[in-house]
């Protein structure tokens, strides 16, 4: 069964600092990979996704993520964090075939301090 691990429950960074949120997955083949953001009181918004091809994907709001097959990882990065980035971030995977369901990680809560 597929699974997603986000090892960091809570991360605090200073505004303007760089950010990396970790995501590791477990699946027999390379799944489709996603990062979602959930702002307080908001629904989930898709930041970026990886299906195939270039392993470095660009998303909205200045985020990017790099797929590393050897490490089964799909870490999310941002070079300079803004206060408005404070939110909960979820990594998710979808197997590449058939009727699929999205499996989410447990989330990483990002706090941004001035």
């Amino acid at each position: 069964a597929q699974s997603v691990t986000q090892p960091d429950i809570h991360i605090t960074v200073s505004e303007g600092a760089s950010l990396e949120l970790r995501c590791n997955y477990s699946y027999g083949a390379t799944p489709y990979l996603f990062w979602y953001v959930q702002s307080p009181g908001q629904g989930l918004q898709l930041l970026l996704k990886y299906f195939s091809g270039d392993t470095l994907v660009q998303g909205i709001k200045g985020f990017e993520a790099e797929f590393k097959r050897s490490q089964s990882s799909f870490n999310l990065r941002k070079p300079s964090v803004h206060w408005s980035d404070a939110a909960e971030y979820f990594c998710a995977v979808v197997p590449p075939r058939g009727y699929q369901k999205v499996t989410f990680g447990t989330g990483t809560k990002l706090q941004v301090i001035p």
Partner: protein
Amino acid sequence: DTAVSQTPKYLVTQMGNDKSIKCEQNLGHDTMYWYKQDSKKFLKIMFSYNNKELIINETVPNRFSPKSPDKAHLNLHINSLELGDSAVYFCASSQDTAGTGRAFFGQGTRLTVV
């Protein structure tokens, strides 16, 4: 114009009651989902419908019954509510059954059972 809308946004009810959460999408998508987000922020899929047909039915109590009157609506009906049903429920939709297209989520319905 809201893409995926859920009503109500907040729902407080007593144990044993029956309640429904409505979801509508105006994106013309074929597939709709219901997710439950527990107190630890973990998101788990409950149901998936494609063109009014049930595709995914995870292990949820029989008290939960999805109803899809048409492709644009997927309502969640819950009978005999229990304290453990307290959670945030998210509706989502996507264009294809693989969920590989961009999935749009509603803002969530916070259900509190007292």
